[in-house]
C-alpha cells in the first residue's frame, strides 16, 4: 500500500531544473482513491538545438493516456492559456535497467517508416509510400515516458513553464483530462473493439498499400542493380574495380546452385580420404581416445553425483 503523500516528506517544487507539477486525475468507480500524478517540465535543452528549440518544453513522466488534445487543453485552460502547436512523444522503446524483458523489447511503438526507401539516396527520398493502415485509434505511452511540446512562439513556451511553477507553488489543483471530453475516442473495451475492427482493413485499401510498396520496392531494386552494375564495371579513381554481389542469377536458383556445389565438393573430399583404420597409429589413437572418453565420462559422472549430493543433501529413501 502506498502511503499518502501527505504523510510523507513534502514534495519539492523543483527537481534538478525540472518544475514538479502535480496533476489530479478524476477518480473512477473502480479505483475511487484520490491520486496525484507528478509531471516534470522544463524548457527543452537538447544536445543539438534546432531552430524550434526555444519554443519547446520538455515533459517527463507523462501519464500513459496522454494525447495532444490533453496537453492542448491543459495549457490552454489551466496553465495560462498558451497555445500548443504540436506534441512529439518519445517514440523509442524503453527497457528497464537490469531486466531484459523481451516482451517490452519486442514491441516498438515507432511510427511506420519505409526505412529502406528513405536511406537510399537514389530512391524517393523521405517519401513514405505503401504504409500499412493504422490499427489503433489512439496511442498510449509507456509509463514514465517523455514528450516535447512545441508552442506557437517562444513567449508562450516561457509562459507555460512559469505558469506551471506558479500553479505548483500555490497548490492549485490541476485536473488531468479536463476539457477533453468528447474530443477523443474512449479508452477501455471500446478502444479494444475499435482496434479489433481496424486490424481488418478494407481489402481494397490494403491491396493499394501493398501495390504502392511493391512499386517503390522494385524501383529501388532496379536503381540498386544499376548502381551495382556501374560499380562493377567502372574502375574507381585508383583504378580498382569494386567486387559486388552480382544479380545475374535469380535468388532461388542461386541458393540451390550453391547447395549442389557444396554437396559435390563434400562427396569428392570423402572419396579422397583414407580409411579411418588404415594406419596403425590411427587405430591406436582411436583406442586411446575411447579410453580417455571412458575416464572422462566417469569423472563427469562422479562430479554429477557430487553435485547432486551438494544440492540435495544425503541420498535417502523418502
Amino acid at each position, binding site marked *: *500500500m502506498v502511503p499518502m*503523500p501527505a504523510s*510523507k516528506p513534502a*514534495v*519539492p517544487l523543483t*527537481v534538478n531544473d525540472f518544475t514538479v507539477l502535480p496533476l489530479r486525475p478524476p*477518480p*473512477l468507480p*473502480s*479505483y475511487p*482513491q484520490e*491520486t*496525484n*500524478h*507528478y509531471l516534470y517540465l522544463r524548457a527543452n535543452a537538447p544536445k543539438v538545438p534546432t531552430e524550434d528549440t526555444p519554443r519547446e518544453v520538455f515533459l517527463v*513522466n507523462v501519464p*500513459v493516456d496522454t494525447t495532444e488534445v490533453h496537453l492542448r487543453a491543459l495549457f490552454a485552460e489551466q496553465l495560462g492559456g498558451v497555445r500548443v502547436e504540436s506534441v512529439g512523444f518519445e517514440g523509442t522503446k524503453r*527497457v*528497464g535497467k537490469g*531486466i*531484459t524483458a*523481451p*516482451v517490452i523489447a*519486442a*514491441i516498438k*511503438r515507432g511510427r511506420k517508416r519505409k526505412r*529502406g526507401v528513405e536511406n537510399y539516396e537514389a530512391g524517393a527520398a523521405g517519401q513514405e509510400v505503401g504504409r*500499412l493502415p493504422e*490499427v489503433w485509434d489512439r496511442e498510449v*505511452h509507456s*509509463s514514465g515516458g517523455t514528450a516535447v511540446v512545441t508552442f506557437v512562439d517562444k513567449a508562450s513556451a516561457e509562459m507555460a513553464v512559469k505558469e506551471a511553477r506558479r500553479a505548483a507553488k500555490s497548490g492549485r489543483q490541476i485536473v488531468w483530462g479536463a476539457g477533453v471530453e468528447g474530443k477523443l475516442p474512449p*479508452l*477501455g*473495451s*471500446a478502444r*479494444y473493439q475499435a482496434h*479489433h475492427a481496424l*486490424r*481488418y482493413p478494407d481489402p481494397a485499401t*490494403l*491491396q493499394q498499400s*501493398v501495390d504502392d510498396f*511493391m512499386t517503390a*520496392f522494385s524501383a529501388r531494386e532496379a536503381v540498386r542493380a544499376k548502381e551495382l552494375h556501374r560499380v562493377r564495371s567502372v574502375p574507381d579513381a585508383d583504378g580498382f574495380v569494386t567486387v559486388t554481389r552480382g544479380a545475374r542469377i*535469380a*535468388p*532461388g536458383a542461386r*541458393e540451390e546452385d550453391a547447395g549442389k556445389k557444396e554437396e559435390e565438393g563434400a562427396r569428392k573430399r570423402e572419396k579422397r580420404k583414407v580409411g579411418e583404420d588404415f594406419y596403425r597409429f590411427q587405430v591406436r589413437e582411436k583406442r586411446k581416445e575411447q579410453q580417455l572418453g*571412458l*575416464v572422462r565420462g*566417469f569423472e563427469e559422472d*562422479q562430479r*554429477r*553425483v557430487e*553435485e*547432486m*549430493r551438494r544440492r540435495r543433501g544425503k541420498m*535417502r*529413501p*523418502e
Partner: protein
Amino acid sequence: MAASGVKRRKLEHVSSDEDDDASFASFGESDEIVAEPLGDEDEGLEDVDDEDGSLADEAAGEPEDVENDKQNGEDVAKIATPRFIAAQQGQDRTDGAKARRAALDAGGGAYMTGTFKSNMFKLQVDELLEQIRPRRGKREEAAEEALHALKKTFDQVPARGSLLTDEAEQQLLKSSKVIVPFPQPRPPRDAKYKLEFAGPSSINVIGSYALKTNLRSKEALEIDMVVTMPSSLFQEKDYLNYRYFYKRAYYLACLAASIKDEPTEYDVQFADLHDDQLRPTLVVSPPKPPSNEDMVKQSPRWRINVIPSVSADVFSQDKLSPSRNCVRAAGDTKAGPTSFYNSSLRADALPPSYLKLLHNAASTCDGFRDACLLGSTWLRQRGFAARISAGGFGNFEWSALIALLLQGGGPNGKPILSEGYSIYQLFKATLQVLAMRDLSKTALVVGAGDAKPTGDGTPMLWDASRAHNVLYKVTPWAYSQLRQDARTSLTMLGDQLFDGFDATFIMRTDNPLLRYDYVVDIPASAILAEKGSYHKLFSTLKRGVGDRTSLVTMKTPPSALWRPGSRRSKPAPDASISVGIVVNSDTFNRTVDHGPPAESKAEAASFRKFWGEKAELRRFKDGSITESLVWGTGESGQTVLEQVVRFLLSRHIGQDAEQSASFVGHGFARLLRQGASMAAYSPLMEAYKQLETDIRGLERMPLSVRHIMPADPQLRYCSIRPPFDIAGRQRPTPANITIQFEGSTRWPDDVAAIQRTKIAFLLKLSELLQEASAAITARVGLENPSDESLNQAYLDIAYGSGAAFRMRIHHDREQTLLERQLKDKSLAPSSKEAAARALAAYKRDYIKAPAHTQAVARLCSRYPALSGTVRLLKKWFASHLLAHHIAEEVIELIAVRTFVQPWPWQTPSSVQTGFLRTLHWLARWDWRAEPLIVDLSGTGELKAAEVQAIRTRFEAWRKLDPSLNRIVLFAASSLDPDGTTWTDGRPQRVVAGRMTALAKAACAEVQEKQVALEPAGLFASPLSVFDFVLHLDPALSGGKQRKGASNGTTFKNLELAAQDDESMIGFDAAQLLLDELETLYGSAVLFFSGGSERPVIAGLWSPQTARRGWKMNLAYSTIPQRVRAKEETVRAEINKDAMLAEIARLGRELVERVEVSSR
C-alpha cells in the same frame, strides 16, 4: 575432531582392503569401529570424503600400489592419477584384449561392463548403501541391553503345572492380570487337553538385525527374538485343530506375565505377528516417556518381537504340507486343505533353519547383504512389508528368495543366480524372477521335490529341503501388484535414456491417488473380517471388471497392538479396505459387455449366476447371440466402471458395502468442460480437413500449395476448452495454421518485401475462398505493426458451422535472409538483435509449432488420457495465474513426459493419475540443474547421443547465464533439441519458483488428504500474495457469460446476434489489456493473468522500483521526495496510486475493481 579423523581414516582404509577377501563379517566390524566415535549421522559424509582423499594421496605416492589396486574395483578415486592411466595403456600393448578388460575392471570402466546400468547408477547406489547400511548407535545399544535383560528374565521363569484351558486362563488372569491371546476360534470350553509352561529350550535373535540387512531408517528398529518352547510341552497330534496355537498362546501369555512380574521399565504389548492372528507375539519397547516433546525425540526407538517357536522335529512335515487338511470337525473327512494354517505352523518351526540359510548366503555371496538392502528399500518405497495387510512380502521374503535362487530354481535344479553377480545384477535378476514368473500358476521349486500352487492366487515358492512355501502369506492382490511393480522397474532400468535411480530407490510410489486410476474405499465394518471374505471380495471384483482394468489390488486394515490385560482389539471403526484399480483406457468405458454365447450352456449358466438379473440374452448385429450386460452411459454421474463395481458389491458382498463404499477417481475429469473425451474436437478436425480440400481445390491460384500444417493447441486436442460449443454460445478462437507454397523465383529478396507479398497472396486467397464457397468468410488481418521483419498479416477463415482458422504463409526464404543479416558484420547491433528475434519467431511459428502440433496430436491418439491431462494441467496453470508466463507447448511437454517416461509407474490410463503424477514430477523438478527432455516420437527415436547433445547445450546455457535471466526452464524434445524455443525470456525465475512452490503445495495436499482429496481444491489459490489485483468484468473480458440480463434493455436475441457476429471472432479484450499493460508497465510490474479460467489480472511491483535517486529516465511513474527538509538530493518513490489510477482509466469498464493488498 582432527585427531579422531586421522584415526578413522586409517581404520577405514584397512577395511576397504579387506574387501578383497569378501569378508562381510570383517566389513561389518570395521563399520562398527568407524561408527563408534560418531555421535551423529551428519559426520558420515565427511568420513567418505576423508577416505577418498587418503586413497588418492596414497595412489600418487606409491607407484607399486597400482598393480594391486587393479583388482580393487571399489577404489575409484585413483582413476584421477595420470600414472594409472599410463599403466593401463602399457598393459594394453602387451596383453591385448584380456589386459584391456582387466584395466577396465580396475577403473571406472568396471561400471560400464554391464554389471551396472551406468556409472551414474553405480555411484548413486554406493552412495545410497552408505546411507542405509545398519549402523551401531545408541538405539542399538539400548535394544541389546533389553535383549539381555529379557533373556535373563525368560531363563528364570518357573514352570507352571498343566491345567485345563479354562483353569489356566483364569489362573493367569488372577495372578498376573494377563489374558491369554487365544486365536479365533477360541478353544472349546470342554477341551480335554492341558496347557503348561516350562523354561524355554533356547533363545535366539534372528531376522534382519542378526544378519545386518535391516535398513537404517527413521522408523523404529525391529528385532526378532525367537524363544523356542521345549518339545516336551507338545504331543504328536497337536498340529490339529489349533491345539498347537492354543498352547503357544498360553506360553506367550506366561512370558508376558513374567515380564510384568519383574520390575522392568519396558513397555509390553501383544501383537499379531505380521497380522496373522494365529501367531500372536510379545512386543517389548522402551517405556513411554512422560508426555514431553523433547523426550519423545530423544528416546531411542526400538521394539523387540518375542516370537515363540517350536523345534522342527516335533511335528511331521508331511502332515503340514499345503495340500493337507489340519482343521476338521469330528467325523468330517471332506474338508479342503488348510494351506495357510499349515504353513503358519511350519513357519513357527523354521526360523533357525532360515537364519542358517541366509547366513550361508551372506558368507558365500559378496553382494548378498547389499542386494538385500536394496531389495528392502525397493519394497519399502512401494509399500510392501511382511505384514499381511501390507502384502506379506517383506525383507525376509526378499532375502530368502535371493538365498534360495542362489541354490536352485533353474532348469535341472541349477541355481538361477550366481554368487559372482554384482549387487545390481542380483537385484535385477531377482526382480526378473518376480516379474516374469507367475508363481500363483506354476510353483517355483528349489531343491528336489514337487509342489503345486494352492490355486487361490497365493504364490508358491517351494523350498523343498525345508518343505515350506516361503510366500505363503503373500496375498493374491498384493502379488499382482508386486509383479506389476517388478515389471515396471525392470522396464525402467532398461530405459537407457532415463537414470532410474531416483524412481527405483528414492521415490515413494505408494500414494493410492498416484498409483491407481480409481480407488474404492469400503469401510471394514461393512465386510466380515474373516480371511475368506477379503478373498471373496477380491475374486468377485477381479472377475467382474475383467478386461476393463489392467490391475485390481486391495489394501486391508492392519491389526493393532493390545495390552496384555485386555482382549484382542477389534479393528478401528474408521478402518477401511481400499481397492485400487488401474484401468485399461481403451475398454474401461465400454457400455456393452459380451458374455459367452448362448450355446455353451455351462459358461452361460455361470455367467448368469454371477451377474444375476443384470445378464441379458441379446442378439447383435453380427448375428451372434450372446449373454451380455448393458450399462448406462454415465449421464447419471457414475462412470461405467463405478456402476459395475457398485453392482458387484451389492450383489455379492452386501447392500451395506455398496451403500458405504466411496468412489474416487472421476473427480478430476469432471473438472473439464465437456469432460475429458476427445470427441469434442472432432467438429474442428473435420472442418480442418474440409478447409484443406477447399484450398487445394482452388483454381487460379498463382502458386500451387505444398503444405498446409496445423499449429494450434486446438488442433492437437490440447486447448483448455474444447474448440467451439455445440450450442454455439461461445465465440470460437481461430486455430492457427500455416500454408506453404511451391517455390518460385519471383519472390522478392528482402524480408520486408516478402511480408508485403504475403499480404497480396492472402488477399488473393481470401477472394478465391469466398468465391468458392458460400459457407466461408475470409478476412485479412494485420499484426506486428511495429516490426517489419515479422509476419504482418494473417487470413481469418470462418466456416458457418462455427469453426475458425487463422492462416499464415510460411516462406522458407525468410530464414536465409535473416541468417544472412545475422552474419552481416556491417549491421548495427540493434538491427542484428531484431533479426535474431525475427529468426526465432520464424523458427517457432513455421517450423517448431507445426511439428509439435503433429507430434502431440499423434501422441493424444495413442494415449487416450493425454488430452485430458494436458487440458487439466493447463487449467491448473491458468487457475494459478501462471498461464501466460509458461507457454502452452511447455505445459504440453511436461504432461507428455509423464506418458512417455512414466517411471516409476506405468503409462497413466486416466486423467487423474496423469495429472497428479505430472504435478508430482513438477514439484520435484529442479529446473536449475535439470533440463526437461521429452521424446515426442513416443517410439524411442530419441537416442542417447542426442540426449547428450541436449544436455551439453543446457550446460552451456547455464554457464552463459548463471543467474537465469534469460533461460529459466529448459524444455527440449526430440523435435526441438534447442530447448529454448518456448522458454526464451519467459517464464522469469520468480514465476518458475512460484510454479514449483504451487506444485509442492498441491503434492503435500495430495499426500495428506489421500483419497479424501477434493479435486477442485488444487485449483484454488489466494490472491492475497499479489500486490494488487484487477478484477475484470467477466462478461466483457470474454470469460463466462454474465449471469442473467442486468437490465431490461438487453434482449436474448440481441445478445446472441452480437456473439454470432463473425467480425468479432478472435476478439479478446482481456488479452489485449494484458498485452498493453505489459508493454506500458513491464519493467515495473510483473503481471499474472488467469486467462479464460479466472477473470483477474494480478500484479507484483518489481523490486527494481525501490526508492532511489531521482532521474529523468525512470521507466515508471514517480513521486519526487526530499529525504530531509532543506536538503538538495531528491529521491524518486514509485507512484503506485497514480499508476493504478492510470490502469483503471486504461481499462475503464473492463476493470470492475482494483484491489490493493494490505500487506
